[in-house]
């Protein structure tokens, strides 16, 4: 180390403190990276790796990015799962003695990004902290870009499952945990496998009880802890705040409200249900298109988009709250023109929440303030438009909407309408806002006026007609006289420069004025910056009011969006009740309908309750639409509880506390579990946690194992649901045996999806009817799917054999199971005939007709006929 250059020594000292980060080390106009950081970064960012003398024998590997375009590089590294520490020169190099002092001014991590270019504007970017203490968890979330802060504790039930649900609900981009959590391999491996999240341990003492309580109290002045509650969330919250401070190194005053919530306040949706119902992204492509959010999101602002997303991820279970939203949506739906006007106005509203975070974090520039101003400028009109609204949420919005005229005026008076990006180059403050600025401006202006007047004055005095005052960057202002007039130049002119045919002079007076002109400019730039910062912090002080208003705006936007969708897609207002019924007339699947077009989607009714219609057993071929139907019911219930209108002719929905789904093959193979294992653990979860108020969607339980095992499990599950849980259930299956349950158990009803047979083929009619299906048409579906004819043929053959065997063994089933087969034909003879037919067919396929003569053709026909006759 001894012979390292001083700069390198400084680098290594800093790097040591930020070992887990890639250190962006500011050198002039570049951020440089050295050693292993350089190697990593050059690979990930595809930039050239070079070297730099560092005092050692070998040059240190180095790569760098220009500071003005660093944002995109940082964002690339963050998205690849790195943390970046930004180390700046903290003193003016011109004034520094020796080595310039450098410090890390910010650590950028996936959870602490605030640059809008790195964020999905319609999604919150959460940083989550988890404190594990034995089987209990305290958790806290923050979105640094908006200042949202939330925390809760998980202290009973299957705590680990609940933790997973919460992670799934908020899908944080970064999780920090305490040691106990981090070292529990079983847990961490699951999290790493299931979630695409940056996951790290932070120091245990951040989670220390007293430390974290003090931290929380220091942020939230009026925080009072309720007595006798589990308080693990305090530990998580304190640690989260500390971590933010450590990485951001600036005030976080926009984190305003300490919100605790109870998991039970919202409809519980476990991870697999969220995925199965494709609430915010599709299961396979993870794309937004095709999700429920895609259908419902017609918000005009990013704030509204985030709010709507939150609503979808946290459906309500309180009747009162649901009705409030529905009524508000209904009002917006009715008032078409008002809605259109509001949406138009919202177009001009920027992301006030995130802009305010920038204001607080001190990274907002003039344009950001002007964006805030423009957004605020819309509020009076929006407010005016909803002034006669009656729905309580809309009245609330009206009351909470603060026109913020003072802030509008402040920004409007202070900041010019089109400010430059940079806040340090002046040209940002409006005239009339600050006397000193105006004075400096006019000094500069008057000086210039004096100088230009000098031109005329001197022309007259000297009699030089073409005397001219000019300016260039090197000499400043000068008086220019052409060659022919040299003789008339007065004595006191000081010659500065001689050009080909003219000379340039200055005078004492001119230089003095120049000083005021040019000096004023420097002072002006500095002063403008100070005034700007002052304005910015005055805006920052109003964070409370701005946030409340932003919240109202985003609620209006989200409600309008739901109303707009309801209107455009012909949804109806559901009647939500505390009862147990789910009665849907002509329900449609919101996403499928949108994908295929309304005319192609066959609506279906649903009737579930805790009496006669508790469990619906749905049979029918694959592809007929069983899964679509069941998801449709789940989505309609969920939408109703979001406060959205629903795709149906009418709907009465008794609130569900949870929706459980067990649908199709899960893609959890990545998590290392076999399909059947996944299926069964999901079933276990459902059976252990479902209540009378839950809605269960079970698709083909038991299919992952042998037929009889599967059938038995399915049967037992239905019995258990019927007897022990009593939840409303949709149960799709291919085990036609299960249709017998209708007669054996109360509350079980059979349904099937209709299919029309057209010769060998089938046509899906997609209508749910009472009664059990008698055939799964598996082979026909396989054929539709393009399975080779040979396989299809053979499968048909086998099916016949199996069915016959079944019939001979258990003749008594024949009545119900399967299509009755006419008579007892000779199975083998039949098969032989079938086989020769296939052979002939294949031969015909192989004939090259273009090379056949008519005689050949006859011959071929003859041999073919012979084969069949045999």
């Amino acid at each position: 180390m001894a012979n390292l250059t001083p700069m390198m020594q400084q680098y290594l000292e800093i790097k040591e403190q930020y070992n887990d980060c890639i250190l962006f080390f500011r050198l002039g106009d570049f951020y440089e990276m050295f050693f292993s950081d350089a190697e990593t970064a050059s690979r990930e960012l595809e930039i050239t790796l070079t070297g730099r003398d560092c005092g050692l024998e070998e040059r240190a590997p180095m790569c760098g990015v220009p500071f003005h375009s660093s944002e995109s590089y940082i964002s690339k590294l963050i998205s690849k799962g790195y943390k970046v520490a930004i180390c700046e020169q903290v003193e003016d190099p011109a004034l520094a003695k020796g080595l310039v002092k450098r410090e890390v001014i910010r650590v950028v991590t996936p959870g602490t990004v605030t640059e809008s270019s790195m964020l999905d504007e319609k999604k919150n970017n959460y940083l989550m902290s988890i404190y594990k203490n034995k089987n209990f968890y305290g958790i806290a979330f923050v979105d640094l870009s908006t200042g949202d802060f939330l925390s809760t504790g998980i202290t009973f039930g299957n705590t680990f499952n609940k933790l997973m649900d919460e992670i799934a609900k908020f899908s944080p981009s970064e999780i920090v945990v305490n040691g106990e959590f981090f070292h529990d391999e079983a847990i961490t491996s699951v999290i790493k496998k299931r979630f695409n999240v940056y996951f790290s341990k932070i120091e245990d003492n951040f989670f220390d009880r007293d430390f974290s309580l003090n931290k929380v109290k220091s942020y939230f002045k009026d925080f009072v802890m309720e007595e006798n509650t589990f308080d693990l969330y305090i530990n998580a919250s304190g640690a989260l705040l500390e971590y933010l401070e450590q990485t951001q190194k600036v005030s976080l005053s926009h984190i305003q409200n300490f919100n605790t919530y109870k998991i039970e306040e919202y409809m519980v949706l476990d991870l697999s249900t969220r995925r199965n119902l494709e609430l915010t992204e599709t299961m396979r492509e993870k794309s937004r298109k095709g999700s429920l959010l895609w259908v419902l999101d017609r918000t005009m602002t990013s704030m509204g988009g985030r709010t709507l997303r939150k609503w979808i991820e946290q459906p309500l279970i309180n009747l009162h709250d649901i009705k409030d939203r529905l009524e508000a949506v209904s009002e917006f739906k009715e008032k078409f023109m008002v809605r259109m006007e509001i949406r138009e106005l919202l177009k001009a509203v920027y992301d006030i929440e995130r802009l305010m975070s920038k204001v607080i974090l001190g990274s907002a520039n003039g344009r950001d303030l002007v964006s805030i101003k423009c957004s605020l400028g819309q509020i009076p009109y929006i407010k005016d438009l909803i002034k006669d609204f009656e729905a309580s949420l809309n009245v609330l919005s009206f009351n909470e909407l603060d026109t913020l005229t003072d802030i509008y005026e402040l920004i409007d008076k202070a900041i010019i309408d089109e400010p430059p990006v940079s806040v340090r180059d002046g040209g940002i403050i409006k005239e009339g806002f600050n006397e000193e600025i105006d004075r400096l401006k006019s000094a500069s202006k008057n000086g210039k006026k004096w100088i230009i007047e000098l031109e005329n004055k001197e022309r007259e005095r000297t009699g030089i007609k073409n005397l001219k005052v000019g300016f260039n960057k090197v000499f400043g202002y000068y008086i220019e006289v052409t060659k022919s007039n040299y003789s008339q130049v007065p004595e006191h002119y000081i010659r500065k420069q001689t050009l080909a045919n003219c000379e340039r002079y200055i005078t004492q007076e001119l230089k003095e004025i120049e000083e005021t002109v040019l000096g004023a400019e420097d002072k002006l730039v500095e002063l403008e910056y100070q005034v700007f910062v002052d304005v910015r912090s005055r805006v920052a002080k109003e964070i409370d009011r701005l946030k409340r208003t932003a919240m109202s705006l985003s609620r209006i936007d989200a409600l309008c969006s739901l109303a707009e969708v309801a209107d455009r897609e012909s949804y109806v207002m559901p009647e939500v009740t505390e009862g147990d019924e789910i009665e849907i007339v002509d329900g449609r699947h919101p996403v499928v309908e949108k994908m295929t077009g309304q005319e192609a989607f066959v609506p279906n009714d649903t009737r579930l309750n805790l009496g006669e219609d508790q469990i619906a057993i749905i049979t029918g071929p694959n592809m007929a639409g069983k899964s679509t139907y069941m998801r449709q019911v789940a989505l309609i219930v969920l939408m109703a509880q979001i406060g959205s209108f629903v795709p149906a002719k009418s709907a009465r929905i008794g609130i569900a506390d949870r929706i459980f789904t067990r649908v199709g093959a899960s893609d959890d193979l990545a998590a290392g579990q076999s399909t059947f294992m996944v299926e069964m653990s999901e079933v276990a979860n459902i059976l252990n946690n479902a209540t009378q108020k839950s809605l269960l969607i079970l698709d083909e339980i038991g299919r992952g194992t042998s037929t009889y095992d599967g059938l038995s499990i399915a049967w037992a599950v239905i019995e258990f649901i019927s007897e022990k849980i009593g939840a409303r259930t949709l149960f799709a299956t291919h085990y036609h045996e299960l249709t017998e349950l209708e007669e054996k158990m109360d509350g079980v009803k059979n349904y099937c999806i209709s299919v029309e047979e057209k010769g060998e083929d089938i046509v899906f009619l997609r209508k749910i009817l009472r009664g059990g299906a008698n055939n799964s048409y598996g082979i026909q579906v396989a054929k539709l799917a393009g399975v080779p004819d040979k396989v299809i043929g053979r499968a048909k053959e086998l099916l016949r054999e199996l069915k016959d065997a079944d019939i001979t063994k258990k003749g008594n089933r024949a009545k119900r199971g399967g299509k009755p087969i006419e008579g007892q034909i000779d199975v083998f003879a039949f098969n032989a005939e079938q086989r020769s037919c296939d052979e002939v067919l294949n031969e015909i396929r192989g004939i090259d007709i273009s090379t056949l003569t008519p005689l050949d053709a006859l011959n071929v026909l003859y041999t073919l006929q012979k084969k069949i006759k045999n």
Partner: protein
Amino acid sequence: MGKIVILDENTSNQIAAGEVVERPASVVKELVENSIDAGSTSISVEINNGGISLIKVVDNGSGFEEDDMEIAFERHSTSKIRKASDLEAITTLGFRGEALASIASVSTVELTSRQAKNTYGRYVKLRGGTLIESGQVGCPVGTTFIVRELFYNTPARFKFLKKDSTEAGYVSDIVGRIALGNPHISFKLINNRTTVIHTPGNNDLLSTIFSLYGKDIARDCMEISYSDEKIKIKGYAGRPEIARSNRNYQSIYLNGRYIKNKVISSAIDEAYKTFLLKNKHAFIVLYIELNPMLVDVNVHPTKTEVRFSDEQDIFRAVYHAINNTLLGKSQVRNIEIREDRKNYFKFEENSKSKFEFVQQKLDNVTGKKESIEPTKKVTESNLGKRDTFEKDLGDPYKNQKPEVVPANNSKDGNAFEKNIIIEDLSDNNIKSVDNGKKGLLAEDVKSKASLGKGLAKEDLAGEGIAKKDLSGEGIAKEVLSGKGIAKENLPGEDLPNRDSKDSNLPGGEVKNGDLSHRDIEEKDIGKGDDFKETSEPIFQDAIIIGQAFSTYILLQKGENLILIDQHAAHERIMFENLKVKYSKKENLAQYLLASVVVELTNQEIGFIEEEKDLLNKLGFNFESFGNNSIVLRSVPVGIDDGDGIKETFLQTVDFLMSKGNKIDGIIEEEVLYQIACKSAIKANKRLDEKEIKGLLEKLEMLENPYTCPHGRPTIIKITRHEFEKMFKRVL
């Protein structure tokens, strides 16, 4: 063997198709009307390639009876009438039973439909009118109609289709019209996968207007409500501000059916006459309800034409309905705070009272001026001025607006100018119709009718009127080609030749009041013509009366009072001057005695450096002067006063910057306009006689002295006759 055979059905369908199915839009119209007749509340139309490759109409109506689905495609099959006598009281939109057969015969058609009573729907597919597939299908209640490959088997017709986008435009127009007529139905139109129309279907016409035409039009609509014993009229009439230059924004519905009808159109025009400029047509949506017995809709297969049994009643009702609406509401536009959102918060009101109107009376001989009385309040906006003016004049004279002097030296301009005059002439009728507010209307209509009858005996009165009022275009053309005006206007044998200027109108049937008007007006026109042909100097022998409001120059010339807007006129002069120099690449620059320092933003500095050549060419020479400032050494000729220099420069820079890097000849010309405007004499500037004369002389020299570069008139003429009418010296 005879050569005549009876065509097979398919061929005759294809021929018939020509009548009903002209283009994709007509298919859409037929199908959508069927959907409406089926009681749908939501109808979606989807087209690709302008409807040529695909038209899909989806409704949620009652659906077809299963058995009907194939028979529906046979000719003259309809569910809507049973016997000919039903035709007399048709309430459904479709009834001829031709549409489906016609459409199916020239395309591939897929029909899917289900009634609520059935669990499943039924599907049929036809190609060229022949059934090729049918079966049961799962589908929602309602009907889906898919038409593909339109005109695939009739290449002649296919050839006549226009560009996809044009055809799509027709479809959009028809769907919009139908939507306006059915606010209780939600319509959707998807063109190449983009939703272009979506109406709410909330049974509120204004919402529907809003969704089709946007906020601004919806805001400027006034509700119409009228009824008498025979006719009910509802709808919305647009304020004059949103008038358009064609009739595309007028939609008329008779008993729910979109129609076009000349009688109604002319009634609308007359009702708006005093509110609109020439060649402007109001935005209007009109629902007319009339006993179906009083109207024949079975005139043409497309059913947009109708025949009324009593056209005068219709004319009068429409006229009154609209006119009452217009008169009922103040036409002074509310100057809303909304107009400019930026200015919602106003901190300082730095409104100095800019205008001081001083009425001046000038001695026409000596040019001696003395101000008589300052009028205190005169509204700033032109509109306001006109309004007060009109109010002062009182009702009967509202329409007596000064005309633009028709004289024009350039031949190209003639068509346009004459067109206006001709319209004026026919306006004459309308003026008296206006007077008819006091009971004359019916009489006037009658007189017109009788005139029409007398002239072309068998001709229908309505058509006669319509021709006169609507076919300005044709008339103008005729005039250009040198034929008589009156001939065109009032065809008929027993008309005397009206070409001769001193001729009277035909006597006998026509009432005298009208006559004299016409006579004099025509003389005026005649003079106008002379004016041009001899290219007599406009202001020769004119007497300068003086200056009014320090803004308008008043001249008397012969039988005319001529008003000149001094600013506009001078602006035109300056502009011509600049343009000539600019196009000759002459130097426009006029070097300043005292250079002017201009402070600019960084961005502006960058811009002017980049566009230095252009600015030099325009006459601006400048040098850098340190700290975001420049020193302006020269400006374009004509700009002289101190502040104007800077202002003109900044305005020019702003304007050029707003155009970005797309600066071309047109924009350069626009800059010249602006410079001209800046350098021209301002309004509210007193001029002495010498200045006025100078201005007139220069104006005289111009090729087109009649408008300022922005198109506003510079010269306005009021005839003696008009004065006399105002003072009721003549009737």
